[in-house]
């Protein structure tokens, strides 16, 4: 409850503060608000809580996913300093919009009522449409429009699913018993609507363009917080209806398509943000793989945290190089010499994304594979592992472009404001949680099964 209120008040405060004070103040307000929300979450960690007649359920599942979203939001805000300073913006609304999006994600994760999920979904999406356009140039507008149009379709599909669900079960709360073709169609439509936000292939087509066109801090936020929110709802719907019959094969097909298509397409990209966009598509497949296990929530939560830290770190590094036209692989050359901190962050982030121990990404993969293996899906695990080799290839390519290639530019990159703090913190966490995996995973095993 406190978490919900804190996030809500933060968003309001960031909006109104901006009328009287510079954007920097709005940023400070938002950061403080997110940290306060994190603290309120930690104080009641592991204690389920519900309010409004069960419409708002902050169970440990929701707590875990909210944690990931807040971490994603914090990373995006901490690392964005130089990106914006170079351009003389953002307007203060930027921070208010981020806060509203986190609030939306939190709502989406903390309910089993389909109507409330829609409220959360829209509260999350509408600020993002605006955020995607916030660089105010052609590419940014294009990203925003694409995201908006496809997002609207996805929302419509999801709403259509709700309508059918109501028709089949007579209620809006997940977990009601149902059967028959209308119920099946309802479930498929609900999952398809959410698969759009989680970017599972073949619902991923917006991802590369939107990730590439949006301002880098917004991309970071999308790849971490938004994905976590979408997966929270996805997992809740799936846990409520059970993974049986055609749904099982549909999800298996989605997972395989996602890991292979995402990784194979990432391999041939020439632009780093686009490559990471496809890599984030592939990671969605690994997260969904956990759904085949008997108790997927802890593994999913941990993977999302690991992935948010690693990919957030990678985007934070790219952000410092991005001049608005993206970062060609060749422009990465000499990164280590131009800024050791960025070089270190980049190396750590990529090895973690590739799933090499002792970094947090390895344990994420390990736990997800373990979960699927516990569910008896060895073939899926083996195929997904094979896709991970393809992924390792292009992560090495990205790493090689930065470290092993001859430098074309020599001038140092100077970081200022909160940027080095954000990057150093993320690097440290990726290593620390990798060396002591119990530290992070303990958070998520406090979680009970998903409340149905």
């Amino acid at each position, binding site marked *: 409850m406190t978490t919900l209120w804190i996030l809500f008040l933060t968003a309001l405060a960031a909006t109104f503060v901006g009328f009287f004070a510079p954007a920097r103040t709005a940023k400070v307000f938002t950061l403080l608000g997110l940290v306060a929300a994190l603290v309120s979450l930690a104080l009641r960690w592991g204690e389920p809580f519900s309010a409004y007649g069960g419409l708002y359920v902050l169970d440990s599942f929701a707590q875990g996913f909210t944690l990931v979203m807040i971490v994603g939001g914090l990373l995006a805000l901490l690392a964005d300093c130089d990106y914006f300073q170079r351009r003389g913006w953002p307007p203060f609304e930027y921070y208010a919009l981020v806060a509203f999006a986190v609030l939306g994600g939190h709502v989406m994760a903390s309910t089993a009522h389909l109507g409330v999920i829609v409220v959360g979904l829209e509260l999350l999406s509408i600020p993002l449409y605006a955020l995607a356009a916030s660089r105010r140039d052609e590419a940014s507008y294009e990203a925003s429009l694409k995201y908006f149009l496809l997002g609207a379709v996805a929302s419509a599909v999801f709403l259509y699913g709700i309508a059918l669900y109501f028709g089949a079960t007579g209620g809006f709360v997940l977990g009601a018993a149902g059967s028959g073709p209308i119920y099946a169609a309802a479930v498929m439509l609900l999952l398809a609507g959410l698969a759009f936000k989680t970017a599972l292939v073949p619902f991923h087509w917006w991802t590369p363009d939107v990730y590439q066109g949006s301002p880098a801090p917004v991309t970071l936020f999308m790849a971490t917080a938004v994905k976590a929110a979408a997966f929270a709802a996805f997992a809740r719907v799936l846990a409520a209806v059970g993974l049986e019959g055609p749904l099982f094969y549909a999800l298996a097909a989605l997972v395989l398509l996602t890991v292979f298509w995402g990784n194979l397409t990432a391999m041939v990209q020439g632009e780093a943000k686009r490559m990471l966009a496809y890599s984030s598509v592939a990671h969605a497949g690994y997260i969904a793989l956990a759904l085949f296990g008997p108790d997927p929530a*802890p593994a999913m939560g941990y993977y999302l945290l690991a992935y948010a830290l690693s990919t957030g770190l990678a985007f934070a590094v790219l952000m410092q190089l991005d001049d608005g036209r993206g970062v060609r692989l060749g422009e990465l050359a000499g990164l280590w010499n131009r800024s050791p901190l960025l070089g270190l962050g980049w190396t750590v982030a990529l090895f973690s994304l590739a799933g090499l121990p002792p970094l947090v990404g*390895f344990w994420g993969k390990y736990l997800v594979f373990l979960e699927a293996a516990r569910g008896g899906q060895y073939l899926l695990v083996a195929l997904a592992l094979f896709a991970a080799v393809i992924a390792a290839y292009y992560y*090495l390519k990205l790493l*090689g472009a930065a*470290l*092993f290639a001859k430098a074309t530019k020599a001038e140092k990159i100077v970081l200022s404001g909160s940027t080095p703090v954000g990057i150093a913190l993320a690097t440290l966490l990726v290593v620390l949680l990798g060396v*002591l*995996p119990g530290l992070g*995973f303990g958070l998520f095993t406090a979680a009970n099964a998903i409340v149905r």
Partner: protein
Amino acid sequence: MIHVLIFLPLVFGLAALVLPRQARLLGLVGAGAALVLGLVSFGAYLEGSSGAYQVPLLAEAGVHYAVAWDGVGAVLMLAVVVTTFLALLAAHDVPPAMVGLALLMESGLLGILAARDLVLFYVFFEATLIPSLLMLGLFGGGGRVRALVKFAIFTLVGSLLMLAGILAVRYLGGAPSFLLSDLVAHPLTGTAGMWAFAAFLIAFMVKTPLFPLHVWLPDFHAENHPSGLADAMGTLYKVGLFGLFRWALPLFPEAFLAFQPWLLALAALTALGAAWTAYAQTDWKRLLAYGALSHMGVGALGLFSGTPEGALGAIFLLAASAVYTGALFLFAGSLHRRFGTLDLRPTSGLAKSAPALAALGLILVLAMVGLPGLSGFPGEFMNLLGAWQASPVWTFVGFLAVIAAAAYALGAYQQIFHNAPDKPADDLDAFEWQWGALATLAIVFMGVYPKLFTTALQPAAEALAALLGGGR
């Protein structure tokens, strides 16, 4: 003490990366301290103290930080600390970051040898890849990116398959955790066991390496930094035989026996094929790469025989070859410092102007050839002795490979040191005297007093052979 030994190089390595100016000093102190600790640990092991320690790392998923020295781990640990120290002593002209990365690798390798939990083993196994890749990518030659991709893909395909096998062996076998003792008590049999064994086998065949998964090896060595530091560390990283000995064979005895005839053939053909290829090389590092590959084939032949002699010989050979192959790569670094090339052909007749250099080279080459009295001999002998009991035919093929070693190694030696015309070169410098003397000492000691090591290896080798039914 076991933790200090494993993580001390890591601390010094990170320090060397942060303080590049002191890297040389930090490297020597770190590797020296590890050498001393290693000798003390080995002594303690002989007195019966294994330093076993265990604490849950990820309790919910049955993963432990569990380490201990057994005979196999302790002997190979000695090889690691000795060779790393040698390499850091010899490579005095490498970029500072390389020293740090070498120490990180040493930590990872010691972890690999000490781990008693399969997931922990995997973590160390993979973590060591990171500094190894960085060393090749940052400081390698012109074709390094190609070599790196080859090396990384082969390794990762193998190890990710192994990860699938790791999950399967616990959940299908029904063990409560990933501890070695738990896994051995709940063996995975039948078809599932075959598949899981195949996954482990591929991972370790890449890292042994064995034909046909060896193709990354020559490029890896040829493209690495000419000083030989990265090659020596890379040689130590070839822990495939150890992985088979410690994990794959004990976990899947049934599957192994079904594969055994094929594996013996593969090992023998690797040994002979690599020796043949080595003979045709004109690049000193490529020749060494193939030579070492041939020796690993002989070692695998012994191990796959499933006899106590063969298993013992395989680990002995692994330890011995880590030292002499590592030293030979460092020797290649010395030649490169003098001539700026590793091509065998332009250098000749060095023995006149640099007799001490020639003597050092001769000792190292003879160790590789397997001259009795030097460290290569006991391992090879026991390998062939064990293999003979399993398959005389393939043993004969392996024997041919051992003979061929004399041809390619001594042929190359003659080319460099004796063929006219004489090309003058500087004799050993201070660094080379130091590491050369130390390497010679280690090689001779292992050759004349192998009993110290075989006593340590004996129980583990016999236990393995008993598990495999004696190989017959």
